[in-house]
């Protein structure tokens, strides 16, 4: 661990490519009270031992159905939710137990974009104030005039008219608000942006605009993304590697194209076959999963996916599978994956 840390720090100083973000065995458990006066404490294991890395300038996609823990993971990574255990290294530096004041300085480097473009902008603030606040908090541009120039520059970068700085969020459409959210995240020149379903609330034609914008910004600024979404097609389009989560655990991690072309985990296979395809024969070749995602408070023993798995065997009910490398760079947590 210390060796790894050293290597990473070394890499930073020499400017070699190093993992920008490294997450090790991250767990987020929420206490759920049960019984009389909450005497029996259960834990909802929203994220249960997740490890991954993101290189500088890379996009890592994260897909899963609702309740699989993808949002919790995204928030825990930037410590908007405190992890229960595990380690988060940003640029080689451990931020898991960093003091709030210090963490705030580091947050400049990792920002977040949220799903709901209506809920994530303060309706009482003008766009100038919204962007200015981000700049002020991070003491990036102290002088108000500089700040104003910076805000205009940001709006131009996300394809909005700088003239609308004095308008309020309600005057914008959903797609435009999402652009404002992106501008706010960009304000402090972060190196990593965690996007929690940033395009899910948008209409198809606008969604494509925002996806293209995110790709352009990445190319221009060398940003790394942790891109969380439930839409596999969107994730495949934007990411280099993709993680599939189920009940708080990673079930598969692979190169984005490989994952969609040759998925190894039966859950990924079902997920891909359920994606609606525009075309005349979109109802064929579907693997219909029976049942629904079980409760994460009481996950099934053995492989958490076995009750819905079409190929489950006896040992799947007993032994939890480990995430193992089935091909170079392709990890799957399934006893039967080859």
């Amino acid at each position, binding site marked *: 661990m210390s060796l790894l840390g050293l290597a990473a720090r070394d890499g930073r100083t020499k400017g070699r490519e190093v993992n920008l973000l490294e997450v090790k065995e991250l767990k987020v458990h929420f206490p759920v009270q049960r019984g009389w006066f909450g005497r029996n404490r259960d834990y909802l294991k929203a994220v249960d031992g997740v490890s991954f890395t993101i290189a500088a300038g890379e996009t890592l996609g994260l897909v899963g159905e609702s309740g699989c823990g993808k949002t919790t993971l995204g928030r825990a990574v930037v410590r908007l939710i405190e992890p229960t255990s595990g380690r988060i290294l940003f640029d080689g530096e451990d931020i898991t137990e960093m003091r709030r004041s210090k963490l705030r300085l580091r947050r400049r480097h990792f920002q977040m974009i949220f799903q709901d473009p209506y809920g994530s902008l303060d309706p009482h603030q003008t766009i100038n104030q919204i962007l200015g606040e981000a700049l002020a908090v991070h003491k990036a541009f102290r002088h108000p005039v500089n700040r104003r120039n910076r805000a205009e520059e940001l709006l131009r970068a996300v394809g909005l008219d700088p003239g609308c700085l004095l308008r309020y969020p309600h005057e914008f459409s959903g*797609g435009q608000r999402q652009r404002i959210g992106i501008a706010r995240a960009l304000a402090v020149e972060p190196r990593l942006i965690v996007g929690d379903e940033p395009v899910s609330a948008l209409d198809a034609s606008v969604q494509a605009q925002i996806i293209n914008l995110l790709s352009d910004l990445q190319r221009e600024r060398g940003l790394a993304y942790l891109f969380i979404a439930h839409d596999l097609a969107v994730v495949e389009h934007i990411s280099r590697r993709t993680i599939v989560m189920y009940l708080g655990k990673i079930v598969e991690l692979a190169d984005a194209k490989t994952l969609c072309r040759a998925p190894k985990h039966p859950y990924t296979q079902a997920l891909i076959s359920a994606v609606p395809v525009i075309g005349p024969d979109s109802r064929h070749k579907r693997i219909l999963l029976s049942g629904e995602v079980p409760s994460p408070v009481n996950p099934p023993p053995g492989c958490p996916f076995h009750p819905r798995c079409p190929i489950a065997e006896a040992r799947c009910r007993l032994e939890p599978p480990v995430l193992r490398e089935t091909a170079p760079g392709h990890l799957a947590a399934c006893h039967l994956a080859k």
Partner: protein
Amino acid sequence: MALLEIKNLQIEFEVGGVVRRAVDRLSLSVEPGETVCLVGESGCGKSVTALSIARLLPSPPARYSGGQIWLNGREVLCMARGQLRKIRGAVVSYVFQNPAASLHPAFRIGSQIKESLRLHRPREASEFEVVRLLKWVGIPAPELRRNDYPHQLSGGLQQRAMIALALASRPKLLVADEPTTALDVTIQAQILELLHTLKGTLGMSILLITHNLGIVGGMADRVAVMYAGRIVESAPALDLLRRPLHPYSRALIQSVPRLGNHEQRLVAIPGQVPSLDAMPAGCRFHPRCSQVQPDCAGKAPVLIEVETQHWVRCPYWALRPATGEPKDAK
């Protein structure tokens, strides 16, 4: 005779003295046993159209300022309240996007279904029939689940309960307004499969309202694409998906990322859907259209039948070779 025939429907909303037209001279028909998809982005008027079929829009502010809606051989817009009550449920039922908001939170789902049975099929209003309906829509252990309150069910099960409730009255037409938008893809696949099977067993028609072109291919017989209050293209589903002719349908199909399609950039439609108070003159899509012609801003195009049953609201539909066929679709 068509089960549902909407002719030149116009719907306006009057708020604070300003009249905004949400649906403009819309015509649409659904034959018995047919599934028709109405596709469009938010704000294009598709839900308003759906609600108007049973005259469910609150009026005021809504106003039916023109056209006719023929449902099962009778005109809906001139019906009296008592007549409306008779068609709601009995002829047309609805399934909405958010089942949690559509089910009554304070009643057990079994009793909600039974209430509908008592109203529409009083002779069969029994616990037995309730259980049978719940079993039909694939709710596990229906004898126990009928005693659940809506909040005790997951989203997918709530939507199944909602479908059971809608079908309890044995409607001839089921209007499903974005029935799977709030659900995960694996659950979405289950619900669509269920709707498809039930349609077969009950011999009803479905009007499916959606923004997701991906679910059209497996469900619909015919598709109508709406943009800014007007139908811009309508055709048999396979025709439209293989060869979309209107520039908007074409762009909409191209703008959706597809699995296994490794194009570097998505073809985005520039700009945004116009708001109701600032509708562009002439063709409403012209400010965003990639093949706009000088006179597009001048005169409003009409729907023309370019092939049998394939209607397009664009005089320049033939300008570019139709390349709507997704490269990877087999």
